């Protein structure tokens, strides 16, 4: 007896649209002429993402456990995550389209004759568009997966293009390629951990579906070594992706080496996808055995927050500093996951969106600060930027204040909601550590502001590009959202509150 599998295309369509767009992108690479490609790719990619976003908005109120024979669970929380990823994706594509960052021919060896030629002919790298779309498709699937195999497939689907994209930098290519390799190797490691954990969970419950594991947990209780090992290793895989300590070591290197536009995309969108999946797993599958993992995860959250904030102080490179800041923020986000209540879910979703937007903006500013050899990421050479480019410097200061959680920025509302959710769940230690590390973190964000505004320029060679119109859109949208979500966050908070639910 063979039943045709039931696929609910309307629910799968956001992902299918993006995949289709990616495939069209590959075809464009193969058949369109070089001159046509950049415009064609950009419009296809943007069109795809907007279409997919429209579809997510259209189906936001539907929920289904059976969209793809139990492998995909779509619900309000999933809709918010997918929507966030797509909005971040659209803004990131606008940055990626600014080709100044990318090597024209990725396959050319650094320093080779071929590389020089390609630079001279002014070729543009357009494969990055379909790669981004593939990554986004993976990211869309990741937080709505509801069995471990689908989850793994989504994880690989989002990771593999990112490994490649990290190596595409136009300047300092060796550093870029090294970071790509590092990301790949460590990512492969973490995937192995993830699979190992999945295998143990299968051994424990006899099934790979979230629902099945949840039932097994409810039925058999927590008295199982298999369950424990499964949770631990699965978590390692996920914690690696979000860059939580002690699995954070790749973050600064990759953030620094990757082309800045890719870093922006990676930092913002991957976090949403990975935390989305983490929320779903811990809320719907392992919620019943919270005693088993909560203490350890609390410790990880505390260590991540403190480590990220402390080490960031010592950074002299703006991209590395933002990387450590993202580690600290991963710690804050973990406190939301740990809260394990509705407030925690709402807060984490809000925080993810607000943080993603501000991160995009901050990295967009980094792409603008240049000298003749490319981007200037040495913080000392950013001194006096406020005088030369007051507008860009003010924007950057705004994003930093949002990261620091100063009132009237989105970061403050995010921090407030996430800490209050954590406090509500009774986890006071995490709240205290969070407040403490916020204080530490404020120090290095403010140091950058001092550098930009209060220090005389030490080096006149640093200049700020006039942003291209695409980059300008990203800058303006992210800045406006950062401010609006700080001053009047009620609509988004209410929207998330009414929509964000996990179904099981």
């Amino acid at each position, binding site marked *: 007896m063979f039943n045709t599998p039931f696929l609910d295309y309307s629910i799968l369509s956001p992902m299918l649209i993006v995949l289709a767009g990616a495939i069209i992108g590959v075809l464009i690479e193969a058949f369109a002429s070089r001159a046509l490609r950049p415009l064609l790719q950009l419009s296809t990619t943007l069109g795809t993402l907007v279409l997919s976003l429209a579809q997510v908005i259209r189906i936001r109120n539907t929920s289904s456990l059976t969209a793809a024979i139990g492998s995909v669970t779509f619900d309000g929380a999933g809709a918010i995550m997918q929507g966030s990823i797509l909005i971040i994706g659209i803004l990131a594509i606008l940055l990626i389209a600014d080709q100044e960052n990318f090597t024209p021919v990725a396959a050319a060896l650094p320093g080779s004759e071929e590389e020089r030629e390609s630079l001279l002919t002014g070729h543009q790298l357009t494969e990055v568009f379909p790669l981004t779309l593939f990554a986004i498709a993976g990211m869309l699937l990741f937080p709505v997966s509801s069995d471990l195999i689908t989850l793994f497939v989504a994880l690989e689907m989002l990771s593999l293009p990112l490994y490649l994209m990290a190596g595409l930098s136009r300047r300092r290519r060796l550093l870029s390629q090294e970071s790509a390799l590092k990301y790949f190797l460590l990512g492969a490691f973490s995937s192995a951990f993830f699979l190992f954990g999945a295998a143990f969970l299968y051994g424990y419950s006899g099934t790979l579906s979230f629902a099945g594991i949840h039932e097994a947990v409810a039925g058999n209780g927590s008295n199982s070594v298999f369950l424990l090992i499964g949770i631990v290793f699965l978590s390692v895989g996920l914690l690696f992706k979000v860059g939580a300590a002690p699995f954070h070591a790749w973050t600064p290197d990759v953030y620094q080496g990757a082309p800045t536009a890719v870093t922006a995309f990676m930092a913002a969108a991957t976090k949403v996808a990975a935390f989305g999946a983490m929320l779903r797993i811990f809320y719907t599958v392992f919620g019943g055995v919270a005693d088993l993992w909560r203490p350890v995860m609390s410790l990880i959250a505390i260590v991540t927050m403190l480590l990220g904030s402390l080490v960031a102080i010592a950074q002299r490179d703006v991209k590395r500093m933002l990387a450590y800041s993202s580690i600290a923020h991963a710690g804050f986000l973990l406190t939301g996951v740990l809260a394990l209540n509705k407030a925690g879910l*709402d807060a984490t979703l809000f925080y993810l969106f607000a943080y993603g937007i501000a991160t995009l903006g901050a990295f967009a500013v980094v792409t603008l600060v240049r000298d003749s050899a490319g981007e200037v990421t040495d913080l000392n050479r950013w001194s006096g930027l406020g005088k030369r480019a007051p507008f860009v410097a003010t924007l950057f200061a705004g994003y930093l*204040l949002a990261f620091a959680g*100063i009132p009237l920025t989105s970061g403050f509302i995010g921090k*407030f*909601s996430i800490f209050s959710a954590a406090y509500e769940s009774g986890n006071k230690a995490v709240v*205290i550590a969070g*407040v403490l590390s916020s204080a530490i973190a404020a120090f290095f964000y403010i140091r950058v502001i001092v550098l930009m505004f*209060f*220090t005389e320029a030490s080096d006149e060679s640093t200049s700020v590009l006039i942003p291209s119109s695409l980059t300008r859109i990203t800058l303006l949208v992210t800045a406006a959202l950062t401010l609006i979500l700080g001053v009047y966050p009620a609509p988004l*908070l209410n929207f998330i509150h009414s929509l964000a639910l996990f179904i099981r």
Partner: protein
Amino acid sequence: MSNWLTIIGLIPLVGALILATLNKSNELLAKQIALAISILTAVVTLLMALQFDRGMTDLQFVESYQWISSFGIKYALGVDGIALVLILLSVILVPIVIVAGWNEAVGGRWSVKTFYILVLVLETMMVGVFSATDVFLFYVFFEAMLIPVYFLIGGYGTGARAAAAVKFLLYSLFGGLLMLAAIIALYVISLSQGGATFDTTALSHLELSRTTENFLFLAFFIAFAIKAPLWPMHTWLPDAADSATPGTSVLLLGVLDKVGTFGMIRYCLQLFPDASKTFTPLIITLSVISIIYGAILAIGQKDIKRLIAFTSISHFGFITMGIFAMTTQGHSGATLYMVNHGFSTAALFLVAGWMTSRRGSSTIADFGGLQRVTPVMAWSFFFAGMSSLALPGLSSFVSEFLVLVGTYTRYPLAAIIATFGIVLAALYILIPVQRALHGPTTPGNESLPDLNLREKIAIAPVVAVIIFLGFYPAPALNIINPAAEHTLSVSGFSDPAPQMTGKAGH
């Protein structure tokens, strides 16, 4: 018109937006607009104050709108007598500062127009912080206020201005974050006791366990004690005052630091009355230390701006002592002290600023014989000094006296020690007066110009207020007293019964 407070807060903000559209090179117009806007704000505030009903102890000019409904956060404003006088103090000082420091924005890191934008934004925040009745809203103003001050110090100050600005910001942020943790705790507790709210009155009815209340009180108190600077959390103040322009210093010490003492009255006492009682001995001790320590260090200062900063630390000791004495005289005295200190510090800083900019140095030893060269300036400084040491007949005397009387009825020892602060005050004022104003004219000072008309216009209202409130403090006290009594009665304190009987004969 029921939205008085919002309108008063919006006027400077709109002014800042207008300034933002101006051309950078049009400095004079920027100053004129800023001045006009700040005077308009002051006039509207005075109009509002005329409608204030002194007989009512409830909050007045109340506004309340949903802001972030999912957390129960409201945009809620309202003032009692204490808040009203502090708002009046703020909006009166801003135009004075603008007139007095007409040229102080020149030579800053950024344009003149930016300076006035920052000042006007700060004015909005000051109005907001004193009128917010929602704890969350208060916190937002409390923290957001730091940003314009930070740029005012770091961008237009002198000397190690960037370092001073950062020190100021980090100290304040640290305290603010502690308070944020406490606010989160209050919110969660309110959630478990019948609904999320940040309304100050509703929060004061929460049932808190002893330990929780103590911790929350401490978090709030430390934040406020950093702001108001109380020993040992004061170290940022002398640096900030040293680096900031005189105008910024006036706003910083005259108004911003009052947020700390205001917060103690409005939040520490009303939200955590039991914990306030528990910690009173400790806080009174710290206050007394502040009074004496600030005074002694002021005596030892060679720099006139640092000297004023340390005298303020001493004065803030008096204010905190008056608050935590928990008597009506103490409270009324402390609130009046806040106002008087605002004006006398303004006078001191403004005159010191003029002296410094003329001489090109703020070291006291560089002055000398100013009495002969620049009589008006010298007399102004002398007058400001007399007001600072609380000479009877000047406004500070009334408040200092009230604080000491209010403290004595409950903590006689503290009051007695604090009285020595007055003796020391005579020293720290008279020594610089003698060195800077009297004696032979120090070489280089012979041709210093005296105050010009603009400067005289700026200092005149300050002098007038100081004299007026010194002889006739009733208008201010009539507004303050009901609020002070009300605060104490909601927090469950009463004045100690008089212990003297008629037989003692006095």
